[in-house]
């Protein structure tokens, strides 16, 4: 279980995270929603060690992991994909996955081991299969579509064999059809790998359809937490974010 308590972070005068306390139970699928600038990405950055917290704690199964380095947090089993897909422009799709698998296997600093080894290629092929990206194996990452880059970004996070997977707006910039395909992919991976999955999302249809739990942020503070049903009927959330005429499926 991942839990954060009384987490705070400011940038100069901007309070991006304001005393946030949250829990993500093992194997759950939760979403974080809120208007732009609410502090969603900042929360991810604090959990994954990209930013240092001002105060508060991040705990993984009762172990304090606050302010560990990104690498150490990755080694604890938390990995993430990014709001703007964040990949390696000059490598092919397969090489990208092979590289991160190599890192997971703790072989990244082997000076004389050939990178193109059979074992690593097979491991990457398996992952390509899961991601349904086989057809793109040998394409340079910067030449694949935006949607595929997002999937690859998730694939990179997944290749590290995480317990907890954090996705920052996985469907951003996609058309409706592509979005639902992405949602399917996410749900499939969540079940297949028995992950604890946390994702940030703006599309309320998606959020209410697949989340077990929803956390609403506003101005850096937690406005509400609960099941989709609870959030749907929460007056404060309706007023502040969803709007009067919100009708979820």
């Amino acid at each position, binding site marked *: 279980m991942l839990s954060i308590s009384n987490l705070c972070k400011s940038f100069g005068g901007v309070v991006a995270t304001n005393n946030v306390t949250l829990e993500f139970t093992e194997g759950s699928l939760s979403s974080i929603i809120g208007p732009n600038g609410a502090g969603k990405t900042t929360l991810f950055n604090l959990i*994954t060690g*990209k930013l240092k917290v001002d105060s508060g704690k991040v705990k993984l199964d009762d172990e304090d992991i606050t302010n560990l380095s*990104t*690498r150490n947090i*990755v*080694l604890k089993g938390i*990995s*993430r994909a*990014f709001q703007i897909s*964040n*990949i*390696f*422009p*000059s*490598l092919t799709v397969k*090489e990208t996955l*092979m*590289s*991160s698998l*190599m*890192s*997971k296997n703790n*072989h*990244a*600093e*082997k*000076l*004389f*081991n*050939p*990178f*193109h*080894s*059979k074992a690593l290629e097979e491991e990457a092929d398996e992952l390509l299969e899961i991601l349904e990206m086989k057809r793109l194996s040998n394409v340079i990452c910067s030449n694949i579509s935006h949607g595929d880059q997002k999937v690859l970004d998730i694939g*990179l*996070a997944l290749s*590290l064999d995480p317990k907890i997977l954090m996705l920052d707006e996985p469907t951003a910039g996609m058309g409706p059809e592509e979005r639902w395909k992405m949602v399917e992919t996410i749900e499939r991976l969540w079940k297949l790998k028995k992950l604890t999955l946390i994702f940030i999302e703006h599309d309320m249809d998606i959020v209410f359809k697949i989340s077990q739990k929803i956390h609403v942020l506003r101005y850096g503070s937690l406005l509400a937490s609960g099941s989709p049903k609870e959030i749907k009927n929460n007056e404060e959330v309706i007023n502040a974010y969803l709007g009067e005429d919100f009708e979820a499926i």
Partner: protein
Amino acid sequence: MSTFTLFKKDISIALFSVLFLILIGFFVEHPWPKDFLISIFSFGLLAMSLNMLIGFAGMVSFGHAAFFALGGYAFGLLLQSESFLTNFGALSIIVAFFVSIFITGIYSAVIGAICVRLNEIYFAFLTLAFQMFLYSVIVSWVSLTGGDQGLMGGIARPVFLGIDLSNSLHRYIFCSVIFVICILLLRILNKSNFGYSLRLIRDNQERAEFLGIRVFRVKLICFVIASMVASVGGIIMTLFTSGAYPEWAFWTQSGEAIFMIMLGGISIFLGPLVGTVLLRLINDVVQMYSSHTELVTGIIIMIVVLGLRKGLVEYLLEKTGILKK
């Protein structure tokens, strides 16, 4: 599978190259080709090792020649020292060779630990600053280094294992073998797991960190290895000229290495080596006709960089369709 079987192709090419270079040594009478090739071995290692930083890892250093100079000076000074020569006798050359590389390794680890934390222009300028520091030490420590005159008086080259480095053929063959071994080493590093960690860092350092790569450590190892290979270039030059000169540590020497890389191309493994050959040729030819070598080479480089917008090797390979865009 062992490293050997997987790098079989590269190792075979290396063996053939050594054979070919040795044949040149035996069958070409005129000294010019051998002398020219030795200068290519030396500056080629400087350019190729610099490209390990720039091309493999995306770390643009402006101070790489410092390690070339340090290797050359260390080697020269050891072989001028009476007590060193009496201690190691026939093994002097071999010991001096490894000790010089080792000294450069230590020095570059200290410099690297400070520099590789910085990115882009800050890294570039700090490496340049450390190079200028070494230059001023060389120039001002006259009693040890001979100051701006350079290390004069020649170096001892005691015969070992039947190899006599004062003999020009022996020297040439010795240098070819060392050169090819170093290039093979760079090749293997480029194709290894470590080489791909460097690519990750070059392409996207932040994401590499999120994949669990120890970015600082990997960059530092890369910096040290590249510096040690550069020092071998300096050692070859010291063997060749029987001295060492402060220009090697001047910033223009690093600039020249960057030119070599730009001429040949950053993304092709042997590009910088081709660049080295081109720049040395241009230099030699222009020197025959004019005293404005720098001006002419500058213009040629500008034409290549602005006209082709890539290295010559990259351009040719793309033109002929071998390399896809």
